[in-house]
C-alpha cells in the first residue's frame, strides 16, 4: 500500500458537521449513499485527495445540501 502523503490542497471537508446536524451516522450514510465506510472515513478525516462528482452528487442528495456546504477552501 502506498504511503498516504500529507494533503497538498486547502480544501476542508465538513462531513462530520453535516452528519451531526442531520443526526445521521457514518454507517447510515454509507448505506444510503453506496460508498464504503472506509472511503467515507477517508473523506471525513480529511485524507481524501479527490472526490468524484458522482460521490458528491449522492452525498448532496442524501444530506440535502450543496457542495459548498460540504467543502470549503481555506486560504
Amino acid at each position, binding site marked *: 500500500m*502506498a504511503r498516504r*502523503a500529507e494533503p497538498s490542497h486547502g480544501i476542508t471537508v465538513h462531513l462530520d458537521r453535516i452528519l451531526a446536524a442531520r443526526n445521521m451516522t457514518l454507517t447510515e450514510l454509507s448505506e444510503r449513499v453506496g460508498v464504503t465506510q472506509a472511503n*467515507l472515513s477517508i473523506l471525513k478525516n480529511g485524507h481524501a485527495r*479527490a472526490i468524484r462528482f458522482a460521490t458528491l452528487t449522492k452525498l448532496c442528495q442524501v444530506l440535502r445540501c450543496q457542495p459548498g456546504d460540504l467543502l470549503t477552501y481555506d486560504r
Partner: protein
Amino acid sequence: MRRDTDPLSPLSGWTHMLLAFVVLIVVCGVYGAFTGTTGVMGFGNVGRICVDEPSGGTVDPQDPLLPHDARAGVEMRTTAYSYCTKTPDVAQRIWYTLTMLPTFALFATVLLVLFRLVRGAAREGIHTNGTARRLRALGWVLIVGSILAPIAEDAAAVRLLATMVSDPIGGSFLPDGGGGWTGLLPLVLVGVGLLTFSRFVLVGAEMRADLDGTV
C-alpha cells in the same frame, strides 16, 4: 492462449534463477578452492596465472606454433602478449583475483538489488516510492560499478604485470586493451535509463496515491 499477466515476469524468474546459479557457483568454487580440486579467482588449484599486455607486435609468419600458415605478403600481428606464471605467490594471486573480482562483485550486487527490487515490487506494488528508490539504486550501482570496475581491474592487472616483468612498466596502458571499458559502457547507458525510469515510477506512485485517496 493464456497471457502471463504478472507485470514482474520474466524479470522475477530470471533474477531468482541467476541468483541461485551464482550462489551455487560461489559455494562450489569456495569448496573447490579449499579442497584444492579447482581454482577460483586466483585461489585454490588455479594452475597458471596470466596477464595480458596489450602492446602486441609483429609475429614471425613462419613460426611453427601458429595455427595457420600466412599467405605470402601477409603480415601477422598479435594484439597482446600474455605473461604467465605456474607458481604464483600470494601477492600475484591477490592481484590476479582483483583483475576479476570487481566485475563479479558488480554482477552480484546488481543481482541482489534486482532481487530486492522484484521482492519489494511483488510485496508493495509496482507504482510505489520503494520501487522507484530501488530502481534508482540499481541505476547508480550500474553507473558507478561499470565505471569503477574496469579501472580497478586494469590497475590490478598493471600491478600483476609488474610482478612478472623485470623492467619497470608504465601505468598508463590498459592491460586488456580497453575491452572492458567498451564492454561495460552500455551498462552506464542502462543505468542512466533506470534513473529516468525510476522517475516514471515516481509519477506512477503519485498517481496511485491520488487514486487511493479518491472517494
